């Protein structure tokens, strides 16, 4: 709410765009292979319940169902775009030798969120607005581990207001006139060409709707995540 306002102000003052539900493609990303081998890497998902006081509690069974729901939903959304996603066994992807590759990929996603999708003032002039990040030689290690040409990395944080917080939000609005933030769905998905290491596509999510606990809304999230993936 407050950010949308801030974005509006930003847009009015300096004409900078807002980073809501945006996707960026590395230039020249085209479907060259008829059937590219895309591995859906083990996802980093955290679902939590926000208490009245804003204390966020991770909820294990939500996470278990979200992992299952989103995996199924992403595969279906990919099929709708004419792509086949292969889930990979989490064990080899979490091998000790791949730890630094995984941490690098997390840091690259952080950098993309910050410098590509983030506040306009944090854009890197040297990138000229294009998506130019790479996992370097670690991509080859990942390629050997998952036997695929592309890897899709998904990181999502999904939070839901507890009943107590929903009540407090109403009371706060009525008494103080101050809105309380409710549940959020924030995250990023990146597609990496494992032959070159280049991040060829990325999409950020930052919204106050969405629900991964049920298959239906999870499919909506998956479709939104993959919306701009080249057909």
């Amino acid at each position: 709410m407050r950010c949308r306002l801030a974005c509006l102000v930003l847009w009015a003052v300096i004409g900078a765009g807002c980073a809501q539900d945006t996707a960026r493609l590395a230039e020249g990303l085209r479907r060259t292979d008829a059937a590219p081998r895309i591995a859906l890497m083990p996802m980093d998902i955290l679902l939590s319940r926000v208490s009245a006081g804003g204390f966020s509690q991770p909820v294990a069974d939500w996470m278990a169902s979200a992992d299952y729901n989103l995996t199924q939903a992403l595969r279906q959304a990919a099929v709708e775009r004419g792509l086949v996603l292969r889930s990979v066994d989490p064990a080899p992807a979490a091998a000790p030798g791949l730890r630094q590759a995984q941490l690098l990929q997390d840091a690259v996603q952080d950098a993309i969120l910050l410098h590509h999708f983030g506040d306009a003032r944090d854009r890197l002039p040297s990138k000229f607005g294009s998506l130019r990040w790479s996992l370097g030689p670690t991509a080859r290690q990942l390629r050997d581990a998952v036997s695929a040409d592309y890897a899709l990395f998904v990181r999502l944080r999904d939070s839901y207001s507890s009943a107590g917080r929903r009540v407090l939000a109403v009371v706060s609005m009525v008494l103080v006139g101050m809105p309380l933030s409710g549940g959020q769905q924030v995250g990023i998905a990146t597609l990496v060409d494992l032959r070159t290491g280049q991040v060829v596509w990325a999409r950020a999510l930052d919204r106050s709707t969405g629900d991964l606990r049920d298959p239906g809304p999870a499919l909506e999230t998956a479709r939104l995540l993959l919306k701009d993936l080249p057909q």
Partner: protein
Amino acid sequence: MRRVLVLALGLAVGLTACARFQPVQRDRVAVGGGLSVMGSAVWNRFPVGVLGADAAWTQDGLPLDRVLFYVAHGDGTPLFEHGRDRRSLEYRANMTATEIADLWASELALAGNGDVRTGAPQPVRFAGLPGFRFDYSYANPSGLVFDGFVVGAATAKGLYLIAFAGTRAHHFLAYRSAAEHLIGSAEIAVE
């Protein structure tokens, strides 16, 4: 909302609200304190100090690679910024390279990094002055490992340091020659 996104995904870069990355021209760039280097468009300048530096440059973003510049750093001030009085972290004008490398290691460790290592300092010429160079490495709080090197010289105007670091998995090797190029082109103006 942005704050929520940043928090939720564990970004910790400490960017200030009015920070703005600026392009670097392919020309001689004045860094400050009389220090200048040959720029290149691959870099981005972050005008506000990171880790107490007077300037920070990066190619892919500060969480991945960075060149930190410390210029004309005076006697009696710590290299990094500290919330409270830390006299034991102050730079002294009569310090040797050995002592500066130790100070660098302390600062990195106190900034929350683990497995901080510094190599033995070597005498080199820096900006035409007798200086020193040492390698270093560390793991950031998430465990991502960085390699880097520091080149510097103590002058009458104070200490000058250029410190490069990049992820061991990719950015150090990818951008080290660009960093070497910056360092090789450094000049310190004599007043």
